[in-house]
């Protein structure tokens, strides 16, 4: 699935944990690892990196390190494009302040503009155990069938046990208020139908897919899907959220936040953005 995995490194305190997580992915996907650092290459940093790679038992002949200089986001994305990276892994902080929200942090820009899928890890661990509880966004979007398919492929390879696919009823309050003009039975039927329609939508996508040994749970909510996804991830303590979108984002989407922006504003868990 992913043959070239890129990892953005910044020599922060979490660098070793991020490399350890990337190594696990490289082994799972039988992929090549590319480490990308945007900044000046110094013997000191090089020594530090080699030490971490040795600690992690990474065979340096299978790891390529890129030292680039320039604007971080631009150079990182350029390297991903030049090297045909399939999956870019990066670390991110859980919550952003108001100022960085409007100015845009590095992680957000990368997620929006990357030419490949992006895995953002908010709690990388050296002794990590991989992903066990995964939530996939099943809301009705053009990309959803693709997101579910690739999300399940990822889960199968990563040895995930439980997958939750979350779909939401659009404008539930307004629809039910309008349906409230019917009898009690009609209202109950409408309510049932709204839920059933959303389950069927996901079920139809799942019907044509190989699910392996995955345990899949379809869950229907109401409200803004980004908020519901984040809430659900927190409630079940999911360790990965998978979603995708095919919209071009502009500054206006941040003044009037778009769904993706809601998620990025306060990442509930690790986040795989499928492109």
């Amino acid at each position: 699935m992913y043959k070239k995995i890129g990892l953005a490194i910044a020599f922060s305190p979490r660098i070793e944990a991020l490399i350890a997580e990337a190594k696990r992915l490289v082994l799972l996907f039988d992929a090549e690892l590319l480490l990308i650092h945007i900044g000046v290459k110094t013997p000191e940093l090089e020594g530090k990196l080699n030490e971490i790679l040795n600690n992690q038992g990474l065979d340096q002949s299978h790891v390529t390190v890129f030292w680039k200089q320039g604007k971080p986001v631009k150079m990182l994305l350029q390297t991903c494009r030049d090297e045909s990276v399939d999956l870019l892994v990066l670390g991110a902080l859980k919550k952003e302040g108001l100022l960085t929200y409007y100015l845009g942090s590095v992680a957000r820009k990368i997620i929006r503009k990357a030419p490949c899928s992006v895995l953002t890890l908010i709690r990388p661990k050296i002794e990590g155990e991989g992903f066990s509880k995964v939530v996939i966004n099943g809301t009705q979007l053009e990309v959803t069938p693709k997101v579910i398919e690739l999300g399940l492929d990822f889960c199968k390879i990563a040895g995930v046990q439980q997958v939750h696919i979350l779909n939401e009823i659009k404008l539930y309050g307004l629809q039910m208020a309008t349906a409230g003009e019917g009898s009690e039975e009609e209202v109950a039927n409408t309510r049932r139908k709204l839920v059933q329609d959303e389950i069927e939508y996901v079920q139809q996508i799942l019907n044509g897919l190989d699910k392996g040994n995955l345990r899949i749970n379809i869950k229907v909510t109401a409200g803004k899907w980004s908020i519901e996804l984040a809430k659900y991830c927190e409630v079940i303590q999911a360790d990965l959220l998978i979603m995708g979108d095919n919209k071009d984002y502009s500054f206006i989407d941040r003044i009037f936040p778009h769904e993706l922006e809601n998620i990025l504003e306060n990442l509930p868990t690790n986040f795989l953005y499928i492109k």
Partner: protein
Amino acid sequence: MESLAHKEVINLLLQLASMLILARVFAEIAQKFKQPAVVGELLAGIILGPTILGTVNPDFFEYLFQSNPSANIALDGIVQMAVILLLFIAGLEVELHLVWSQGKSAINISLLGLIVPFILGFVFPYFFASFFGFADGERLLFSLFMGTAMSITALPVVVRILMDMNLFKTKMGMVIVASAMVNDIIGWLIFSVILSFMGKSGSLSLINTIGITLLFTVFMLTLGKGLINRVLPWINKNLAWPGGLLSLSMAFCFLAAAFTEWLGIHSIFGAFLLGVALGDSSHLSERAKEIIHQFINNIFAPLFFVSIGLKINFFTNFDFWLVLAVLVISFVGKIVGSGFGALRSGYPKKEALAVGFGMNARGAMEIILGLIALENGLIDEKLFVALVIMAIITSMSSGPLMKWSLKSNKFT
């Protein structure tokens, strides 16, 4: 504090009971014929008012609605509150994130669906003012009012039609809903400017009014929304549910309404914008929205719609040619405007026409708008009757016309 006398209390309660009972009966009948409840409620008012009851049994009508001025003032207060609450839920229905996710087509359809009927509604009354019942005052203001009154689509009516036709979740359904939402916001922005020039609060200059209106809108949609996003989680967590949320949201609705009234733009605008800001908050659950809708839609909305019929004699104020002119302008403006917007957004002809028919439904908003204009002496009773009939006919015809235009077109 003065209070109502024994007799007046009985009178007020009888008024409320008769209005609610008849509204319910006719709303049920309307729904049996697949028509929006608002059509039945308006009819109930016409029957209970001077048009039918006042003609058939004038003594009983007078006893019920004209014998106690104090009871009537109390009833008027309740109806005023109903209008504010109706605007509050109209705002609650607007979901900005849905509008953005529909992107350019929603903007195209809503703007063209607003501009074309607005221009037609402006031009004809401006040049044929006496035909449209313009008495005295500002002709420009009168024409601006007519333009706006032709432009606002009734979102709840459209949602019901789309749900009945199983089109709500389709691309076309979502784009119609989003367009109607944009339409609402812009329509009310224009109207609030017009309102500040009508009657009581005309002390501000045009620039000041537009400035204050825009400033208040921007404030509510940014800082106001931010504030709501901070307060709501606390309310949900620490106060009774849904009691705390219900009473406080009503309280803030009235506060916002009082604030805009104080600013010199009408109270309903504050209620509407608070609704928009509150409805857009992710912390207002869909269940809470449903509850707020239910109790306003089923108690306050019927009282308001019935009260319309109580105020005016629809028979003596019926002017066939005026009704026809208003109908033609409203149909042509909306269908051509929205339809053309949909066509520009890449919809095939039949679907574009269906979008135009869908957007053509008008309802509560035109009636509220007309009533305020009537109370401020900007329009006469004949034009008001024509506007109410226009709202009824566009609401009734929207669904069947959509079905007709999509007949040979299958949707999935």
